[in-house]
């Protein structure tokens, strides 16, 4: 069923190299609207490089990245964010001097249309936008159960909460496509389960398309609609979790040629 829709995001032969290292080799991938696509692969397979290409922090040497029918491969990162591509960083990139609320409001940046001079004069229009953004940020804070720390500077919060703040900041962008780079890395069992629940809620209640990079294979195979496997910059398999579980190439990449199962 999902295969019949026009994809939200399509990568065509994306090729990225750093001097001698070829990080991505002609990767082609389609992401359908509303689906949760997981990307797995061993360390150094090019998963985060792929995210950086999609969000515009790296520009691939060749290939096309088509988002909503538009080739965005030349667009700068900030304009891709405005188009609706949000991301969560693997190593947290929160503004530690700002409060949780202010971090969320930075995520709301593209909603603001008030000019700098209107902000400086604190005009009625600027105040109205501030309140609207605040309402959206509070909705996300409520969704992620961050009410108690909204006025706390991010720098003093524990790691598990920071992951939620970073997810919230990405959600404040009201994205069409959300890139999650290892949202559960470093979390304990309980926090991982909470994160999984948030990811499912984002998919089902908010209808946001997500691409998930994760090393916790149980989480990936339980959550994802489809799974793509990268190895040394090649996309070696794409399919449903069941298909991936039994794919010989994937098993070879992960387990070597043994008889174990994933």
């Amino acid at each position: 069923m999902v295969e019949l829709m026009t994809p939200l995001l399509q990568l065509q032969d994306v090729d990225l190299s750093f001097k001698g290292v070829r990080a991505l080799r002609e990767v082609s991938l389609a992401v359908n609207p509303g689906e949760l696509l997981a990307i797995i692969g061993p360390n150094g397979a090019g998963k985060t490089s792929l995210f950086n290409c999609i969000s515009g922090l790296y520009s691939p040497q060749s290939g096309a990245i088509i988002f909503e029918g538009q080739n965005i491969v030349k667009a700068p990162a900030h304009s891709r964010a405005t188009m609706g591509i949000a991301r969560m960083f693997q190593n947290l990139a929160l503004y530690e001097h700002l409060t949780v609320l202010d971090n969320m409001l930075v995520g709301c940046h593209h909603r603001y249309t008030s000019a700098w001079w209107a902000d400086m004069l604190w005009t009625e229009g600027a105040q109205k936008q501030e309140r609207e953004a605040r309402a959206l940020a509070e909705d996300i804070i409520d969704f992620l159960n961050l009410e108690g720390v909204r006025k706390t500077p991010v720098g003093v919060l524990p790691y598990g909460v920071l992951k939620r703040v970073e997810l919230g900041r990405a959600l404040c962008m009201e994205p069409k496509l959300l890139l999650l780079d290892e949202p559960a890395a470093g979390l304990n069992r309980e926090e991982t389960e909470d994160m999984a629940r948030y990811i499912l809620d984002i998919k089902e209640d908010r209808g946001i398309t997500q691409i998930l990079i994760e090393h916790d294979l149980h989480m990936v195979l339980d959550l994802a609609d489809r799974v793509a496997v990268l190895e040394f910059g090649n996309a070696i398999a794409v399919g449903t979790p069941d298909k991936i579980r039994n794919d010989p190439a994937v098993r070879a990449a992960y387990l070597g040629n043994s008889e174990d199962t994933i």
Partner: protein
Amino acid sequence: MPTRPLVTSYKDDSRLFADIWHKIAWTLALVVLVAWPFMASARWLTIGTQTLVAVVGAVSLMILTGFAGQISLGHAAFMAIGAYTVAVAGHVLHLPFWLGIPMGGFAAAIVGLAVGPFALRLRGLYLALVTLGLIPIVAHILLSFPELTGGVSGISVPMHTGFSAVEGASSLGDMTAAWHVAGLELSFQTKLYFLYLGIATAVCLAGVNISRSNTGRAMMAVRDSDLAAEALGVNPAKAKIMAFGISSFFAGVAGAMYAFEQQYITIEPPFDLHMSVHYISMIVIGGVGTIFGAVAGAITLVMLSPLVETLTAGLPILSDLTSAQRSTLVFSVAVCGFLIFEPLGLFGIYLRIKRYFLTWPFRY
């Protein structure tokens, strides 16, 4: 008794004077500020006026360095542009001061916007070096037109209130004459003080509004991590250039205020590296990242040297030094002390005092 009212709307939450304590404190501050020119001696009135100039200068540097994280050693150059713009506007063109001050701001902002693009590719110390280069460049340009700027011998800064010259007014403009309002005699110094109090209040409000709005958050996002800012849809180039433009406008205004206060200006000194470093010390001592810090730092540093001169006059070893040496000594000890013991500056001390009273009688 609750110490603060219950916040029931987002509008309430963004109020400047959130509770009764803020209102009491600001009313007291207002009384002191208005009474100052009538209570203080002529010397301390001048110091008060100079403090207000420093407040505007420190707020403008705070917007650039504290909010947007762009280190600038060229602050003195922007102030020199503002100062010389009002000097030429008053001396040569006979324009009134209320036109000259914004002109000084715009002239500095144009240069600031021209320097801004350098910040797109340079950061930290490299940007500091580029902005440092601005000081000799501006000095050289000003010295190259001695018929306009007076060259090395300097230029007087007349303060006109209107376009046409008033009969019998001094060569320093008709603003220097005392006014008689409702039985009170307002000297030039008093008038200047109240004018600067108004400008400084407006600039501080503008700074606070930037820091609590989208524009300021975009700057802070770029300061802390421009990569993440870009992924969130903030255009780092726009935020940096905006910071340069706004900051240099206010620096130009501060320079204009400085010129009117001095009445006669030369290029070097005062518009040299020493002045830039002085302003950086103000925002460091006050606490980087807040308008409170800029104001507190400016007040402390300007008031420090006369205070030190008065207080150390009778002390055994210190009184052997000249007054300039004494204030330099205390100034350097203060900067080092803050960097070691309270990196958040006076703002950090304020936060600690506030927390003490909020949690009283518990200590944590």
